[in-house]
């Protein structure tokens, strides 16, 4: 160990396996006794080459590829991509499709925020809250499965609209589910704002001021917990949000407690929106026709993922394949804030601070799949496709 007088540094490496979270990332915390004096990150352990891969596939195939950028917020990726392609093709998805897109996006936000609530509670040593919130999360997972047939990667979007519809039985189930979850969420709100032991782990921990949040480019609930009024759903409404507006939820404290409060209040807002959509869903078609070849051009599609602003930049060269697909995911923006706010805190607070931004590793890590040694087990895309067809026969 190092004494305050000695010039040597003591560095605690954490990860890449299990750096507090169940995803790979490597962190180095320089400590002086218990206090962290510097932090750095190394990402890229789940890099899969999606941006390059997208250039070799057709627009339609890419929709499925992009849905798989993230396992938690899969729908927003597919939606952002589909909206971008529709902008390029100058096609408008019908109003019913826009409403269903928002419906699924809000259900996904509910599942993502509840998942985070559990993970963050677990990092704080509060496993009871973790188990209860994940039990309740099953409600929304079941609803998503009832609507789309899938627990993850709902595959709701097509270019030009959606391919799933909502019937009356599903509407009833959604109402019941929202009522149950709202009641449970009110309880969780009480727990995270009143439980003394838990507050000891969250209040005034990982504090980020408004100025810091703005300067570091924090986004989503992480930024909003520091008072940053930024939400793409409100700033630049897309899909069904012009018809079904949301309210921006912010807090001013900027600590971990505020991040809990903001996410939980966003859950209330999502429950309200889901009810409003199913009660007032416009009738009509589910999808518009889109040509296979997309006209030349560039577009930017921004959506609010559960973790913050997600940006897609798309360039078409007029063929059936994109020239460039650039994805900027919200977790990437929030890393900077973690590394700065970590300084000055105890090493034991690091798991909570890391979890506080709701990081998503596979989001950050996209590009290149090629391995640098020849592996006889490596499968070509065609072989993999054939294998899939045979497997599911």
């Amino acid at each position, binding site marked *: 160990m190092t004494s305050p007088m000695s010039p040597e540094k003591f560095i605690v490496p954490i990860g890449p396996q299990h750096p507090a979270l169940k995803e790979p990332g490597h962190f180095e915390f320089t400590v002086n006794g218990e206090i962290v004096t510097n932090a750095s990150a190394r990402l*890229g352990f789940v890099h899969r080459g999606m*941006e390059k891969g997208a250039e070799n596939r057709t627009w339609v195939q890419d929709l499925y590829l992009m849905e798989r950028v993230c396992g938690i917020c899969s729908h927003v990726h597919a939606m952002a991509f589909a909206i971008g392609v529709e902008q390029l093709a100058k096609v408008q998805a019908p109003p019913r499709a826009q409403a269903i897109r928002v419906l699924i996006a809000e259900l996904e936000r509910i599942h993502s925020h509840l998942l985070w609530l559990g993970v963050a509670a677990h990092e704080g040593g509060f496993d009871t809250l973790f188990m209860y919130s994940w039990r309740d999360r099953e409600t929304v997972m079941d609803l998503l499965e009832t609507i789309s047939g899938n627990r993850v990667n709902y595959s709701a979007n097509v270019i030009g609209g959606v391919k799933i519809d909502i019937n009356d039985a599903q509407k009833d189930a959604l109402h019941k589910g929202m009522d149950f979850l709202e009641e449970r969420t009110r309880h969780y709100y009480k727990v995270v704002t009143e439980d003394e032991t838990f507050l000891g782990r969250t209040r005034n921990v990982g504090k980020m001021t408004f100025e810091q949040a703005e300067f570091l480019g924090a986004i989503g609930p992480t930024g909003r917990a520091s008072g940053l009024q930024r939400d793409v759903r409100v700033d630049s409404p897309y899909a069904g949000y012009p018809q079904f507006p949301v309210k921006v939820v912010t807090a001013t404290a900027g600590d971990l407690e505020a991040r809990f409060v903001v996410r939980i209040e966003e859950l209330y807002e999502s429950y309200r929106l889901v009810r409003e959509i199913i009660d007032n869903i416009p009738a009509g078609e589910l999808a518009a026709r889109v040509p296979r070849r997309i006209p030349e051009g560039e577009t930017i599609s*921004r959506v609010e993922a559960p973790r913050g602003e997600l940006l897609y930049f798309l360039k078409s060269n007029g063929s059936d394949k994109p020239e460039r697909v650039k994805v*900027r995911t919200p977790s*990437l923006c929030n890393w*900077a804030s973690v590394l700065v706010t970590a300084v000055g805190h105890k090493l034991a607070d690091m798991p909570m601070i890391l979890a506080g931004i709701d990081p998503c590793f596979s989001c950050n890590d996209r*590009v290149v799949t090629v391995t640098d040694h*020849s592996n006889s087990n490596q499968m070509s895309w065609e072989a993999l496709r054939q294998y899939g067809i045979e497997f599911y026969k």
Partner: protein
Amino acid sequence: MGLEDDLKLAESLLEKITISTSRPEENRVDIVIEAASIKTAAKILLRDGNWGYLSAITAMDSPEYSIDETTKEKKLIPGCGNVEVLYHFCRGAAVATVRVSLPYADPSIDTICDILSSATLYEREAAELLGVVFRGTPNTDRLILPESWPDGVYPLRKAFTSLKDIQTPEEGVCS
């Protein structure tokens, strides 16, 4: 302020260093500038003009192709082309994209990390995947690619297909 006002403001703020502007979409303005003025542009938008925030940096390969007269087949001319770097600034619904184009021979540009420290992750991504050199960027460690990845190989360049295919490029004739 409305969308149109925001876009006009961005145009007027950068007027002195602008080469050309275009409005590709209703909520967007594209402003082409010289690579040398990127620091000035970032400073004007983020500090002096307080025009929104930097949402992303997109780097994009734009190689030169030769087209076969008879087969109409497009072929890359090795070593010829540009890397375009796009800085997307957002304010509400408005998106101002500041564009620079860097030739393969010298794909370097000043860092903007001294103006906005969080740009470092975007710059490192563009540096690793497309070989843009950010002069003065505080950290050039590998962010995404494995440590064993060969130097000078940029996977998002169009010329890159697989590590197995890498060979020294023959000199092409650039236009």
